[in-house]
């Protein structure tokens, strides 16, 4: 690509404003003859090493170049896709995308100066309120990195609160979340135990009862579980609390539009992934870890918390008299945080996911109570209708896990899962997740297929047709 000709003496780049004249004036003030002198403290043998980097692209070259990179992905073209497993293509109201693009929100720093950050702060208070309402919990922070790290922080918090060193994790849980829990538990030298999946998530009491003891700080449970089943959290909390262990529930926020608020079931900490209700899946990030807890634990929370307060003094009116102080918002309970408490902080958390949290808040408030419930029910109905149609095909079974399930079901066909996926891919369909290698009986030989409120009915038709034609070629019998 052609190199750009900068006018002699002009600025070096559109993002850097200094002309030769600026440099001359500034260096004169410094008593220097060249900017190279500014770097003389770097020992010469380390200074200005030869580097290999591609040449600069002008803006329209960059756009063409990036468009080519973007085109080299299946996602560039509209196609039927049934992969979920923790990252869901959802319906996000356009309003959310529009608000997060406002430079006043997008280009601000963490709100350390509340007087000129009320937009970020008040929106964060809205976020905490939305998360509390959705989860049925009493307090929430302004969000953590993602569901995995948020759940890990919940486990660390439970260990601090209970002063116990073992953590139990109930299968089926997302393998990525489990991996993050291992990383963080290892860092804190906690013992992590995986509890085998109960046969029916709607009746998990006995599986949990036998696995928990006085050494456990908490039990981590996913709702709906990794294979899609809806868990009866009331039974889980009853069993865990008998042992003095806390319950950390990892919840899908859309499912909570329909399902019982975990706080009503007695859960102690709720985490979740907010990304997909706030904006695009974006290859799984940036994400948004939701984190809410009981009020008793507010001073143990990781991350940032915004509080509502008032001005110390009201503004002066036209006659100079002090008026009523106005309402404002501040970062609060900061004595928990790293920049004050350093090595005694509750977490090292600093930069988080504020802009994603804003998108999440605007999206949920735009949907409103009925819109969220309708979206959740639409998701449920579309998934169940799709499963019923596939289950009726010769050679296939499509069933949800347990008595009740939400948006993901287990698909078995006349071919092993990897081959079935390959055949679907040939037809331009992203067919789901191959569950080979999982311990659960019902996962053997199955694909995890996801249908959401945002899955167009035509895509389900395409999947059914494709499965029919693959099945017809095989002529198999129902595997279930």
């Amino acid at each position, binding site marked *: 690509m052609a190199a750009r000709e900068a006018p002699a003496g002009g600025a070096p780049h559109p*993002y*850097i404003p200094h002309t030769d004249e*600026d440099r001359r004036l500034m260096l004169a003030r*410094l008593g220097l003859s060249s900017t190279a002198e*500014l770097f003389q*403290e*770097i*020992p010469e043998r*380390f200074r200005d*090493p030869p*580097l290999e*980097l591609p040449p*600069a692209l*002008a803006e329209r070259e960059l*756009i063409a*170049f*990036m468009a080519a990179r*973007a*085109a080299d*992905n299946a*996602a560039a073209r509209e196609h039927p896709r049934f992969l979920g497993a*923790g990252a869901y293509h959802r319906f996000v109201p356009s309003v959310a995308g529009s608000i997060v693009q*406002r430079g*006043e929100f*997008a280009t601000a720093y*963490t709100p350390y100066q509340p*007087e000129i950050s009320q937009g*970020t702060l*008040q929106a964060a*208070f809205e976020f905490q*309120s939305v998360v509390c309402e959705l989860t049925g919990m009493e*307090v*929430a922070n302004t969000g953590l*990195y993602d*569901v*995995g790290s948020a759940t890990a922080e919940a486990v660390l918090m439970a260990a601090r609160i209970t002063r116990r060193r073992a953590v139990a994790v109930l299968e089926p849980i997302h393998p*990525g979340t489990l991996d993050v829990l291992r990383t963080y538990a290892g*860092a804190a030298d906690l013992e992590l135990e995986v509890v085998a999946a109960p046969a029916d998530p709607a009746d998990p009491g006995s599986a949990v009862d036998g696995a928990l003891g006085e050494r456990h700080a908490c039990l981590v449970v996913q709702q709906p579980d990794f294979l899609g089943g809806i868990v009866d959290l009331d039974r889980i909390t009853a069993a865990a609390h008998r042992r003095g262990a806390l319950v950390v529930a990892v919840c899908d926020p859309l499912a909570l539009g329909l399902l019982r608020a975990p706080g009503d079931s007695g859960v102690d900490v709720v985490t979740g*992934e907010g990304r997909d209700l706030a904006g*695009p899946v974006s*290859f*799984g*990030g*940036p*994400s948004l870890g939701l984190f809410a807890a009981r009020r008793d634990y507010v001073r143990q929370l990781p991350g940032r918390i915004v509080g509502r307060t*008032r001005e110390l003094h009201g503004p002066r009116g036209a006659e100079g008299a002090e008026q009523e102080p106005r*309402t404002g918002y*501040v970062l*609060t309970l900061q004595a928990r945080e790293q920049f004050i408490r350093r090595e005694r902080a509750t977490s090292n958390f*600093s*930069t988080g996911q*504020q802009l994603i949290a804003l998108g999440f808040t605007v999206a949920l*408030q*735009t949907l*409103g109570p009925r819109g969220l419930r309708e979206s959740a029910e*639409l998701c449920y*109905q579309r998934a169940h*209708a799709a499963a019923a149609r596939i289950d009726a095909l010769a050679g296939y079974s499509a069933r949800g896990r347990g008595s009740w399930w939400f948006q993901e079901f287990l698909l078995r066909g006349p071919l092993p899962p990897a081959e079935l996926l390959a055949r679907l891919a040939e037809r331009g369909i*992203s067919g789901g997740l191959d569950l080979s290698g999982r311990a659960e009986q019902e996962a053997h030989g199955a694909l995890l297929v996801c249908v959401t*409120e945002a899955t167009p009915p035509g895509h389900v038709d395409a999947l059914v047709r494709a499965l029919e034609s693959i099945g017809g070629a095989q002529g198999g019998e129902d595997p279930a």
Partner: protein
Amino acid sequence: MSTAERDIGARLAFDRGSPGRRGVGVPSWEGERAPLPPAGLLRERLRLPELSQGEIVRYYTALSRLNYGIDSGTYPLGSCTMKYNPKVDDLMAALPGLAEAHPLDDAGRVQGVLRIGCELQEALCSLTGFAAASLAPAAGAQGELAGVLMVKRALADRGDLAARRRILVPDSAHGTNPATAAMAGFTVTQIPTAADGSMDREALERELDGSVAAAMVTMPNTLGLWERGIDEVAELVHAAGAYLYADGANLNAILGRARFGDLGFDVAHVNLHKSFSTPHGGGGPGAGPVLCGEELAPYLPAPVVVAEEGGFRLGRPPRSIGRLQQFHGSYGVLVRAYAYLRSMGLDGLRAVSEHAVLNANYLRALLVEAYDIPYDRGRVLHEVVLAGTRQRREHGVRTYDIAKRLIDHGLHPPTVYFPLIVEEALMIEPTETEPREAVEDFASAMLAIAEEAARDPDLVRSAPVSAPIGRLDEATAARRPDLRWLPAGDD
């Protein structure tokens, strides 16, 4: 929500609108209805605002106008590198082929995404002098945790972890460094700063023994100064059997001019939302890739992007510390940083550090008479740390007041009261994207405030008077936490 709304903070979205309004429609389900789970598994109530779409947009637009961003004006937060965020980079991250890519899709269907990751890894390695990188950490603090856990695992593998339980951190460090060390199960020993603004070498040598796992050093340091003799420090640390960690928060100062790997560091993180210009979002999302030499590469967090014959794929290093997030990192942020790198090229990146440092020195020269400068070398790198000690001593005006008064001058205050070793600190980082006139305007405001402090200290102490809101009662906020909306009568 006209500007006439005197107390916008008193009414949340929850307090607005009316039952029955809605902001967006949802398609209705026309098919056969599957039975829902029993009532015991379903939620009883959901309290969310009920607003029309226009009301929502007006409310959040009104909130946005209470904010100050880099789009609004100079934002000289020290150690935060608040530079202009190119708009084209946001558009690139929104390209459907990237934004709609699913993290678990088959590698063959996301080659463009993976190639961007691989080339970003390579570019960051080239810029920092390291052999390998993982883009997984979501932010600087998570990058730090990754780096320290890599050290921990390497020590465990060589049977040395039980003995090495201490991490050395200079007293000028960010709070995340000691907090990270503690999260990873280490104790922290603080190393004092010498009169010239570098680490006290004698103190460092005294502490370096077989009980040390690593030293974490910010490069350049939070005083905006080159850490003198850092290559000798690296030799000492290595001779003691420990690792040297670079906090790359201040990489902007030395982009293209010096590399952590060449200086003897073993592992580092860099903040893409600082040096690589991705928008800070009011507190994220960011990205904090971790980079290292050959020795620690097997321990990098998963995943890393691997280039093979025939394409790219995600891989897990053989002795990986594991995952830090459920998926692969802040990909939308990585795309923006990659687009930025491609738009700058090597010459552009060297111009970044050149003009970031030029601006900081120019600002220092304009303010050196009016404010105290501790640890002064007559020269700084990307930022200058002033002290409001003279203003406090002579006029009873604190740095806190000076910061608030800058707001009345239409500017965002710098970082204050950090680093902790500087009394009444004002830590100012203009970055390269501020034109000369903006640096001069900021200096003029600081000089005017120094005069105001002498002439009318009450004026400075009562600032801001022109902000959307005055000073807030933070003490009551912490003592009686009010952290969420509740319906009237329910609190």
